[in-house]
């Protein structure tokens, strides 16, 4: 079966201080129908850029090269009506902050049915019926009243559910979820994620799920793609993520996640700060922060290659297999004892 979404060697450049600089390089990714992939990484790793490229929401001044294929058709060359049809019926996006992504002066009902009506996907009555049904599906009670309200009358969690329902309303083939729970408060995050995961399962939707949270992504998605500094560094089935994690960066993310069962003296963090894509000169982008770094890593970056049923971009993948997380913690501990990173506050972990 050929992939529903195929990204080939995607490279995006944006002006940074008036010079075009890459923010994403060489991202290659394929997604089968019905599969969910989690794009994970720190802020600025290029995960949102990747998902926005798929629905063509990059700023007009962005320079994009490479290829994105949806169902075999090139996305980047779509224009006019073809692009509109693609956005209307094939893909849907759930944004990070529902508050800013909903027009404040229009009612919820308008927001939810507009795409259906404008794109002629169904009639007015059917749209209303469908929307009410979906709102019940995502756990919104009293749907008819909600439809009459304005966005400011709804809580963030409720509004995000509305966004989810609106995205599902067009019955898209691909759902892009760009940190759908990040802007919500912690208790609502769980509910919203549970609803999203449940709806996806029921509808067997293909999904790209962008998040900071590796564990969350692993719980929701079939596969995890870890991005660092605009590069895809690892791509792996999430079921076996813990056992088979092969890139030191992904391992670092796993290691820095506090565990409720273990009492930790301090929170683990990857030392140093995340690089931007254009700061990577040569070698592996993670070399400056990697506890397992070799001379070779600084000179030349490994390509993304198949290892253990996944893909990884590391020279030492086979060699370090199975002992990354532990080794990571030991190395960090040793450094910590020598006082090399006293102020853990300046190191950013995975959860911001």
């Amino acid at each position, binding site marked *: 079966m050929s992939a529903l979404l195929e990204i080939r060697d995607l490279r995006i450049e944006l002006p940074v201080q008036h010079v075009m600089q890459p923010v994403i390089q060489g991202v290659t990714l394929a997604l089968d129908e019905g599969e969910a992939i989690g794009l994970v990484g720190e802020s600025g790793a290029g995960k949102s850029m990747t998902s926005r490229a798929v629905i063509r929401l990059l700023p007009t001044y962005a320079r994009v090269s490479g290829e994105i294929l949806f169902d075999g058709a090139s996305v980047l060359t779509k224009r006019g009506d073809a692009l509109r049809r693609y956005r209307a019926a094939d893909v849907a996006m759930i944004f990070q902050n529902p508050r800013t992504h909903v027009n404040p002066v229009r009612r919820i009902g308008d927001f939810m049915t507009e795409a259906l009506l*404008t794109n002629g996907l169904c009639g007015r009555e059917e749209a209303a019926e469908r929307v009410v049904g979906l709102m019940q599906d995502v756990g919104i009670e009293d749907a008819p009243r909600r439809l009459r309200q304005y966005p400011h009358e709804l809580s963030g969690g409720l509004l995000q559910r509305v966004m989810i329902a609106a995205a599902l309303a067009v019955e898209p083939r691909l759902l892009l979820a760009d940190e759908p729970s990040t802007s919500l408060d912690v208790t609502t995050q769980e509910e919203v994620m549970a609803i999203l995961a449940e709806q996806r399962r029921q509808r067997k939707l293909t999904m790209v799920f962008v998040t900071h949270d590796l564990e969350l992504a692993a719980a929701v998605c079939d596969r995890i793609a870890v991005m660092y500094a605009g590069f895809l560094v690892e791509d792996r089935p999430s079921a076996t993520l813990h056992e088979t994690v092969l890139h030191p960066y992904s391992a670092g993310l796993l290691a820095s996640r506090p565990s409720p069962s273990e009492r930790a003296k301090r929170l683990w963090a990857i030392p140093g700060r995340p690089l931007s894509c254009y700061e990577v000169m040569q070698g592996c982008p993670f070399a400056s922060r990697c506890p397992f770094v070799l001379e070779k890593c600084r000179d030349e970056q490994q390509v993304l290659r198949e290892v253990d049923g996944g893909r990884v971009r590391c020279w030492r993948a086979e060699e370090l297999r199975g002992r990354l997380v532990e080794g990571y913690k030991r190395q960090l501990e040793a450094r910590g004892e020598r006082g090399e990173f006293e102020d853990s506050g300046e190191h950013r972990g995975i959860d911001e």
Partner: protein
Amino acid sequence: MAEIDEIAQLTGPRPLTSTRVGRTIRGVDPVAAACALIIIALTLVALLAPLLAPYSPYALNILARYQGPSAQHLLGTDSLGRDLLSRLIYGARLSLLGPLLIIILATISGTFLAIVSAWVGGLFDNVVSRILDILFAFPGIILAMLAVALFGPGLIAPVIALSIAYLPYIARVLRSAAIRERVLPYIDACYAEGLPTRTIAIRHLLPNIWPLVLVQATLSFGYALVDLAAISYLGLGVQPPSSAWGLMVANGQSSILTGHPQESIYAALMIVVTVVAFNLLGDRLAIAFASEER
């Protein structure tokens, strides 16, 4: 099913901001409310002129020139013995219709130009902005005089000329608002839904800059009224014996020296009251919308 029908009816576009405007005027601001009342009253006077005016505005009575206020003629009569109250009442029609046409024309074309220019950006935006800058250089009165010279006096020529003169004021303010609004995430979200640009501009962006449109239109109305009054004062606008306030000021001018200033004074007073009402209302609306946004 009845419920579904009801919801189905809710999904069409509707003027949402009228409720906001209503709230602003009613709840908050007595000054704005007073201005709005004056404007409504003036509009009613203009619309119902034939019912309200005690005499025909054209009825001459040479024997009764320059009368002071009396039970028969509440505001007295002019140099030809015409009832001043009736002339003022009928004068409201042309005096308000002119600026109304100007504002409608200038606001529609200005808003359209502003949104298109903000949306397209780049060279187009630059060219449009420079053309607007050039238009700024011409005072409305001069343009209007030019138009009258070309097309002859009356209502239409000055109205069109002044619409063009007011267009840049409206377009410039709205353009910057539209540029600010256009990059907001909800516009992106609309694109992600596959809505056509036209729909996004009309149904999403426009309602969000609507308050500004309203403020600009209200403020410009006052200025347009003064300009038009000046035009008819100069004798380039509507021609006698039609009555318009600007014309009445000019008409009564010669009588001031003979000790009968009432015609000029009453007409000028009407102009002042109307302009002040519109400007104050515009200001108050601007303040109300700004504080609402914060």
